[in-house]
């Protein structure tokens, strides 16, 4: 083909009058669409919701069935709030894995390049991912833990060991579950952004949350006592437990420490997200 044949008519293509530009609000909408349009998100959230809402009442049913046979000590230390919200142990795994996937899935598929071509400042993508994921997690987990609480208490009336929602730590523990899951999810997402790799992100997440607490047990008692309350899982977990264990941090102090870890991880991932090649 000769050069003249394709030479332009010297006019720019007819502009459609698109006036849109990239804003944080636009990117939030985009990340909302991205979050819900993947099967992995829907399954992980369903799993987290069912475990959070269902496990506590299930444990309550089993405990009530065995109540007569429990030792007096077991009965005396029975905790109706911790029993009701026990599902968080399982739910946090699903939230953490999904948190890593929200961003590592973009790296493994190459989607991240499309995302950054559309939003070259990059950081709005990170904030929007954190924001949409945190909002969805909070709403679902608060609803699920409320279901777990009321469900379990209804079952616990059998032996009159139930507590009412007006019982001081109850509401704090329910809202605390939502808050804990937000911070946990954003922590996991930051690990996904740092490692840019699903397996690596999940390994670090599981290591910090589940392996580290076991590991510090082999330390000398004095060292263990000094470190243990500050582990992310223990510091964060304080806010959703009924009564703070002796030697642990106060609920909101512990939660603040947990938030601190997450903010640091998120900040590190934000800096690297802008600096590294996509």
């Amino acid at each position: 083909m000769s050069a003249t044949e394709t030479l332009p008519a010297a006019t720019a293509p007819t502009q459609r009058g698109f006036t849109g530009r990239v804003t944080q609000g636009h990117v939030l909408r985009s990340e909302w669409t991205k979050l819900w349009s993947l099967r992995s998100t829907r399954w992980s959230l369903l799993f987290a919701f069912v475990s959070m809402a269902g496990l506590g009442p299930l444990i309550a049913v089993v405990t009530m069935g065995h109540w007569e046979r429990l030792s007096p000590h077991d009965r005396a230390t029975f905790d109706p709030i911790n029993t009701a919200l026990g599902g968080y142990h399982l739910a946090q795994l699903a939230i953490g894995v999904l948190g890593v996937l929200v961003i590592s899935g973009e790296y493994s598929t190459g989607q991240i390049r499309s995302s950054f071509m559309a939003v070259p400042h990059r950081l709005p993508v990170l904030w929007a991912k954190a924001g949409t994921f945190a909002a969805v997690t909070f709403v679902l987990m608060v609803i699920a833990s409320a279901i777990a609480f009321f469900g379990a208490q209804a079952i616990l009336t059998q032996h009159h060991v139930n507590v009412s929602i007006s019982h001081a730590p109850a509401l704090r523990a329910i809202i605390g579950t939502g808050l804990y899951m937000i911070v946990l999810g954003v922590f996991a997402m930051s690990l996904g952004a740092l490692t840019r790799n699903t397996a690596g992100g999940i390994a670090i997440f599981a290591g910090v949350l589940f392996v580290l607490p076991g590991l510090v047990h082999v330390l000398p008692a004095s060292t263990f006592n000094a470190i243990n309350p500050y582990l992310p899982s223990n510091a964060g977990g304080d806010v959703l437990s009924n009564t703070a264990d002796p030697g642990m941090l106060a609920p909101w102090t512990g939660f603040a420490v947990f938030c601190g870890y997450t903010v640091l991880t998120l900040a590190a991932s934000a800096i690297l997200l802008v600096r590294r090649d996509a």
Partner: protein
Amino acid sequence: MRFVIDVRGVTKRYGEKVAVDDLSFSVSPGIVTGFLGPNGAGKSTTMRLILGLDAPTSGTVRVNGCSYRELSAPLHEIGAMLEAHAIHTGRSAYNHLLALAQTHGIPRSRVEEVLELVGLREVARKRVGSFSLGMGQRLGVAAALLGDPATVILDEPANGLDPEGIHWIRNLLKRLASEGRTVFLSSHLMSEMAQTADHLIVVGRGRLIADTSVAEFVRRASSDANVRVRSSQATELRDALARRDDVEVQSIGEGLLEVGGLTGEQIGEIALQARIVISELTPQQASLEEAFMSLTGESVEYRASAGEENEASENMKAMA
């Protein structure tokens, strides 16, 4: 004139490996510019640098006068399709495009429009993971056109496509060009470029080899060609021709010579003066593919044999 893409003294290193080496070129508005080079020449890296995905080790890359990262609505200015598909395989084509559109506040109707344009409307709700290579390529084109940009960048658009897909890409490029859009497309196939491009940027091993119009490239490729001469007095003709400086004459058969360094016209005149009868005079026009091969031969990373090297560098001097 304001360049749509302006690459100035750009070097990109990945560890020890230099992917792009002091590369400078620019892409003018309203024409199709081909970005040509063998595999591994640094084409994809250069495109990632243009799109702000990778940062250059040194040098500057500007798009419409700005760094890509400064653009406030990049999809309206420049649409790109990268070679490795940048698409989450778990999402449907529609949702992929919708999520991209939403970053710029582009309406859903435009998503439907580009899906229709690339012929993916029927499969828009299917997961991208189930798409064939050709369908993935079409989705990439749809994403590039989403913001109706005046400039379109396509990395190896014909790669891995069947003949029907290649035909489709060709028509698309013609259409984009006729709409007056600036198109910058890479390929490792010269024949693809000759069909569609006006201007050529040729790279090898991350360096600029040629920056020329396609017409000029073709002219140079042809002027370099040898001429085949058939004559019953081949021996006399050979002596007559060999008297000239810088002329190479080779006997390639009974009464058949191949002459380098002279045009057919010159050979005819020499034969006439020596009163030698010529029965055939054919310029051995190098195909565009051969011209490209000889041009980039030296820069191909893994050469077949060292013997080709001298030939390649000879040709390079001639072309440069």
